[in-house]
């Protein structure tokens, strides 16, 4: 039973990591990354590390996602063209 759960969590880890990079949009990516962190927390719990699981859940899933969303918001406001690698 535990092994089946473990396999499911490992598969979800790979899938969420894959989709975090694969999605075209940035917001879906950030949500997928948040799911990745949550799955990681679950994995830590299965590996008998509740201390690390709490830390990963609060830091990875909540705070990290928050700052990712801040960054995405800051970078998606339309700006005038120019810049780039031209001086």
């Amino acid at each position, binding site marked *: 039973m535990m092994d089946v759960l473990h396999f499911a969590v490992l598969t979800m880890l790979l899938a969420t990591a894959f989709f975090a990079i694969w999605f075209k949009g940035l917001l879906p990516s950030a949500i997928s990354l948040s799911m990745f962190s949550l799955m990681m927390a679950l994995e830590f719990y299965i590996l008998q590390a509740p*201390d690390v*699981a*709490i*830390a990963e859940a609060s830091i990875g899933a909540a705070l990290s996602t928050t*700052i990712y969303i801040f960054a995405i*918001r*800051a970078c998606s*406001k339309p700006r005038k063209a120019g810049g780039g690698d031209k001086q």
Partner: protein
Amino acid sequence: MKPLSLIVRTGCNLFAWFMLVFGVNVVVHGYASPGGGFQGGAIVATFIAFLLVSYGGEKIHSWVNEKIYDLILEETGLLLFITLAFMGLPTSFFYNFFTIPWEAYQQTGRLFPQGTTAIMSIAVGIEVAGALSMVILSMFKGIRLVSDRQIEEEPGHDR
């Protein structure tokens, strides 16, 4: 930030206070149950993230001064932590200087927090809560700074 729907905002507001209490609980009971300084501090820091969602940035910035987080929370935690480390110095840096003997401890029922670890845990909890809240607030401020206001060249570059 665009205002979200009323249900989300109210839910976040309620949830935030729950997270605050839960975080403090995790910090304080870190010596005997899963948790401790980092984990609890991080949970407390989600409090400010939820408040940002429920009330919006302008209100939060008008309520809390960043100096609260910077000077009071963070400095208290860091200085308490390093002072505790220094206090072990006659023996060695980081020495755990007031442990109770094992026999005496067993008689108290094994739930009494003791040794420097419990205090250090609280110190780190305060520090981490202040630090992560500060990160969230400054990055939120950074959105406005980046998009609206010009980051001007500083006078130091002029000759």
